[in-house]
């Protein structure tokens, strides 16, 4: 019998193949069970996630880079989360025990509260008291980030909203800044009758921008007491103020004051039309300013802002809401470093000034005399200071209500713009959802700022 042929040779070949298969399966099992070794070089890394774009150059990114240079014992890795304040990737990252050491997220959302309830967020109260953060953060802003008498986030990017307008168009039309609702409607009508079919840019396709206008109308109609009664007491969304404001919003839509097709325009397109002078007004906030400086080009200095007059002739209120909160991971390997970075960013006068010059407003007082602000931001802050003595209302409601409420508001606003939903239907839907969330214990109750 020749070698390599016959039954014995076939058996031998089969045994070799079987052996190879066994080794392959065993290897796969070892790989699957291994803990991996990537990144375990011994170097300390501070992982920071926040709402930036890759390669973005802004004040925060620059300051973080500076802090990184001053701390050679570790290195900072920034993950740009884009514009979403609660990116879906954050939840599985944190719940798996990994995730960032420090991140910027929404305050008051269901997701943020879920992180807190699950013990995934580091208690910042000791830092708040020991590092004198309480001397900087106003109590009403600290209260938003507080539950069970503990501070869970550092509020930042304090946003205010207003009616942004093109000064040159107003000048051309002989219009002045309105201070009453009647004057405002006169402005809207004159613009519409004189070549501006979209007097107020609404960005209805994205819905959230125009909810800020509706929210401002609500807050103006209800005032600080009415809003607080709703959010923290037994107030309802169907009260007189909310109803009148929503009906007036519906009238604006029915009269075409948001243009012939508001649902077809997204946020970026609406802003582009505003910068190009196609749309003379749009209700937006300070968050638009960093991008506007670049996108509006030479038209940036032509942008002005005024506070929206109230419907019932009542006082105009200042409005403020934290655009984001900075959280530290309860499982952070570099918790001390994260707190140190927060201190560096938001509680040193020099850096607070730099953040403000970059177009974002840090929580607490800033010496405006030392700051060279973008012109429209100066105007926006000046408007808030002008009316601050009348009281302060939220700039937007979504930071204080569950996501389902905001979702109902956005859908309802689109329905009003489409003519398929009435003001009453919108408010009834929101009220019904609010009651459901209250029963489920999802309405955030504020215990006030922590007591040091």
């Amino acid at each position: 019998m020749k070698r390599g042929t016959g039954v014995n040779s076939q058996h031998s070949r089969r045994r070799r193949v079987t052996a190879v298969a066994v080794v392959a399966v065993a290897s796969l099992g070892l790989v699957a069970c291994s803990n991996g070794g990537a990144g375990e070089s011994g170097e300390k890394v501070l992982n920071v996630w926040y709402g930036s774009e890759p390669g973005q150059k802004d004040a925060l990114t620059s300051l973080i880079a500076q802090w990184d240079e001053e701390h050679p014992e570790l290195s900072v890795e920034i993950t740009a989360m884009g514009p979403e304040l609660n990116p879906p990737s954050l939840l599985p990252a944190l719940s798996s025990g990994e995730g960032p050491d420090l991140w910027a997220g929404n305050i008051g959302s269901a997701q943020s509260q879920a992180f807190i309830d699950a013990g995934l967020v580091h208690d910042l109260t000791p830092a708040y008291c020991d590092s004198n953060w309480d001397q900087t953060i106003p109590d009403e802003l600290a209260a938003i980030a507080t539950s069970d008498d503990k501070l869970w986030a550092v509020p930042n990017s304090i946003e205010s909203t207003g009616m942004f307008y093109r000064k040159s168009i107003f000048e051309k039309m002989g219009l002045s800044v309105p201070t009453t609702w009647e004057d405002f409607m006169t402005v809207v009508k004159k613009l519409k009758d004189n070549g501006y079919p979209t007097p107020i840019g609404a960005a209805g396709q994205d819905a959230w921008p125009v909810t800020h206008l509706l929210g401002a109308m609500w807050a103006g109609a209800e005032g600080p007491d009415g809003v607080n009664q709703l959010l923290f007491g037994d107030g309802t969304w169907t009260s007189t103020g909310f109803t009148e404001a929503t009906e007036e919003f519906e009238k604006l839509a029915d009269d075409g004051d948001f243009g012939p097709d508001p649902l077809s325009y997204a946020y970026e397109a609406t802003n582009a039309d505003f910068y190009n002078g196609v749309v003379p007004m749009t209700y937006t906030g300070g968050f638009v300013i960093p991008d506007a400086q670049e996108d509006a080009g030479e038209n940036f200095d032509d942008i002005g802002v005024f506070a929206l007059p109230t419907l019932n002739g009542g006082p105009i209120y200042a409005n403020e809401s934290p655009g984001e909160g900075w959280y530290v991971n309860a499982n952070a390997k570099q918790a001390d470093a994260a707190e140190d970075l927060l201190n560096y960013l938001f509680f040193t006068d020099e850096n607070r000034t730099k953040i403000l010059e970059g177009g974002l407003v840090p929580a607490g007082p800033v010496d405006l005399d030392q700051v060279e602000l973008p012109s429209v931001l100066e105007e926006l802050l000046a408007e808030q200071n002008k009316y601050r003595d009348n009281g302060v209302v939220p700039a937007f409601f979504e930071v204080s209500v569950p996501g389902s409420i905001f979702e109902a508001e956005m859908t309802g606003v689109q329905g009003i713009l489409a003519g398929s939903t009435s003001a009453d239907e919108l408010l009834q839907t929101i009220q019904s959802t609010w009651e459901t969330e209250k029963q489920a214990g999802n309405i955030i109750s504020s215990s006030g700022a922590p007591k040091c």
Partner: protein
Amino acid sequence: MAATASTGMLTRRQVQGKRLRRGARRNLTAYLFLAPALILYLAFVIRPTVELFGLSAFDWNGVNPTREFVGFDNFARLFADPLFWRSLGNNLIFVVLLVAFNVTVGLITASALARAMRGRLIYQLIFFLPVVQASIVTALVWKWIYQPDGLLNNALGAIGLGFLSHGWLGDPNTALPALALAAAWSGFGLSVVIFLAGIQSIDQSLYDSAKMDGANARQMFMNVTVPELRPVITVVFLLEMIGAFQTFDIVWATTRGGPVNSTEVLASFMFKRGFTDAEFGYGASIAVIFMVIVLGAAIISLLLRERNED
């Protein structure tokens, strides 16, 4: 007749035993080679599916270490949720539009390509390019096309059809068909390629016979191509249907389910409830129903096809 070891002859039982052992060794080798894929399938498909079913019986926010058992409450809530029915309805419309377009137009295009003498490869590449493009890119491109001052309205104006200009994504009546068209554009090339491969495998003699019988192009298409491609059509139909049910990227990147929920589909509805509202148990119940619907549709399609063949 008994055999003895000294004679070397084997009993029937011994022969059968040997055959079984040989078969078992062959099977073992086969299973060992299958094992890696099977392990991955069990780990990343079966196990999550089983966990999903389990999760649907709980109220869980995705991060809390404890989960509250609620039984079938999530399903009861789901069936009473008007937005679920709206999403399902939108999804079904989306599936019908997408499948109808990609199967019929894909088949006709492949048939025409099969007869093309020149440039077939170029056309195949052109049709297939959108397939390999990232879905988010497709979404953003079509978002731009559909803008009021976008490519589509400008093109309509240029050919004297400006009266048809529209806010395609801003109108609740046109947003869903507009997205279906965008999705069809991105998947159409795959249908063409699959159909073309099927057509090229059809016996040419069938066409020759039909030609001799006086059949024209349309008759050959209906009486030769379509019947011969029935198994391929089923495959394409299933692929397109399942893909259409799973639509998410194009909706999320353009309308996020708006305006007024007119483009809300099951995947975006599930994503919002699960991740945005931190209701993982409820989101899991949506996923379970979603899976049952898609599986049911696929099984019904296959059964219908088998019945037609009988």
